[in-house]
């Protein structure tokens, strides 16, 4: 009986503490954080390099924004099945709609509960584990 390899995630947020918080939550949910970067351009490079199972992006970042990276992910054939989770400090409905329009799976408003993030990650990939 061989254990399935851990799912790989790329995390991007300009705030190092939030980045670490997301990484800790991802690890708790059984993910392997293959890249943790601080801007949109680096995020896109890392995504292309690792072709991860999940991408978690802050919306407001230097360089490309999370929404722009999300659109690139959706446009890439290799990444068509890769879900994107957006994080944002903005709370209004317009931003949520923009996230959906860019093709994000879900949208998590800051401040978020790490417990809730773990639950979301576990839930999102639970079907594939069976």
């Amino acid at each position: 009986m061989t254990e399935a390899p851990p799912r790989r995630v790329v995390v991007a947020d300009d705030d190092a503490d939030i980045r670490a918080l997301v990484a800790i939550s991802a690890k708790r949910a059984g993910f392997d954080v293959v890249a943790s970067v601080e801007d949109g351009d680096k995020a896109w490079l890392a995504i292309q390099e690792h072709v991860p199972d999940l991408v978690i992006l802050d919306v407001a970042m230097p360089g490309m924004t999370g929404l722009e990276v999300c659109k690139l992910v959706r446009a890439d054939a290799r990444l068509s099945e890769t879900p994107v989770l957006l994080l944002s400090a903005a709370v209004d409905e317009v931003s949520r709609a923009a996230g959906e329009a860019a093709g994000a799976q879900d949208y998590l408003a800051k401040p978020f509960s790490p417990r809730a993030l773990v639950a979301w990650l576990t839930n999102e990939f639970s079907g594939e584990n069976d």
Partner: protein
Amino acid sequence: MTDLYSRVMRYLSVDHPTLALKQLPVAMAFAIGIALILLVPDVIVVHELAASIGIGVMVGATVLAAIFTRVERLERYAIAIPLLDLIAIGFFRLGTGGGSSVFSALLILPVVWIAAERGRRHIIIAAVGTAVAMFLPLITVDVPSISSSDLLRGFFSPFVFAIAAAIINELSRQSRVQLESIRRLADDKEVILQRTVEFANQLQDSEAQIRAGDRLFRNVWAAVTEQSIIGSSVTGLIDNWNAGAEKLFGLSSEETEGKRYIFEFHVAAELNARSRELNYPPGETVLNPGFSALVESARLGRAESREWTYVRDDGTEVPVLLSVTKRVDDAGNTSGYLFVASDVTQSREVARLKDEFVGLISHELRTPLSSILGYLELLRDDEDNPLSDEQNHYLSVAERNAHRLLRLVGDLLFTAQVESGKFPLDSHPIELDRIVSAAVESARPVANAAGITVEQVLPDVTPWVHGDAIRLGQACDNLISNAIKFTPRGGIVTVALAAHNGSAEITVRDTGMGIAASELDQLYSRFFRASTATRNAVPGVGLGLTITKAIVTAHRGELDVESEEGVGTCFSVKLALIAAPAPV
């Protein structure tokens, strides 16, 4: 000179001659008669007694006339004077020869006097008076013989005098009538003259007022340099162009008045879009459809302010807030329009910067708070190193305060959104009783800790309203948490929901410290804190009611407050009811 003339004329006035004046010619003629007797040898006295009586009566009559003139109430007996004159002349005539007397002619003077008085009865008085003057001396004095010619003269003379009296009476009546009408005319003329003078004065005053008004208007018109004011005819042809318009467009009034149309200074696409909005099909109106759209509200008598874009001749655009009103003529018909515009370039820039700032705050404050709350949660959830109760308590305090800070940031952002008009409402049909119950339940822990009872009164039937459940919940939370904060231990907060007359009403009543009446109108201002709040050290920053008011207003509802210091406060929110949606 005029004064002397008027004084003499008053004395000699034919209108109102005094009795003394009337008596004067009679007395003088009589005196001349006496003088003639004394001076002319041929004129002799034939009967001394009769002549003496005559002179005596004449003196008496003259004295009486003088008395009557002075004593006003005797004036009505004035007719006695000429009658006495007649008798005096009658005796004097008899004394100087009777029928052959040269003084018979004197009789005419009192007769004229009597006859000239007002009323035809004076003709009779004159005739009778003459007859008495003829006969009385004959009867009373002892005369040698009365000839038949004396008798005849006694009847005939009164008859002639009566005719003369009648003529004089009539002539004087006519002259009186003429005099009166002349006087009336003179009075009328006087009145008209006075009125003319008054009108002239009024006209002068009005003219001065108009000139002052005109001057004021010109000064105000010239003083408005920061707003563009343009006047146009009903077709849009510019007829007024103020200093503000000159400054905004860089064109003088000479270049525009009577030469350019207002819609030439608008972005055509904007006007067309508006005319499509108002359903003006092209060609439907004789006017430029864009112009019709521009003045639509003003034409219907409504004042309208709306953002438009002015365009200068060089193609540069200026965003303006434009108020359009109509001008009316004296008959109330629309004679044109006024376009008052303020350049909003700067205020738009300020709004943009504010939005940017709000976005920055949103990000920069929420991000560290996210870290704080996230890591606190990690600490609490660390199963490998469970925390002691004391440590857990410390964590709760840190978490509670981080949440408090987060709420404050949220409130600040929300008020900024409300101010910039970017206030999103996610409205659906909602059950108001659920919102109220949830708000009451979430407030219970705080109320219990503060020793305050929260009572809830809900209606039997669910009131449905169209609204944003989260925002309305926030409004209820704010009102209830305020009520708890401002009520001392042992107090009661009653939250009631009722539906009547097509509206749902949420009331939150407390038995707290109340709000001073003078502060009620400032209650919804940002950062306002009631004096009772600061005095009693109630925590808060003064945003809760601002937000509550904004939420209620955005739902087209009403927020009211009644309060009495030391007794309590009652806030009420009224929202329009809708029909319960059909079950799916």
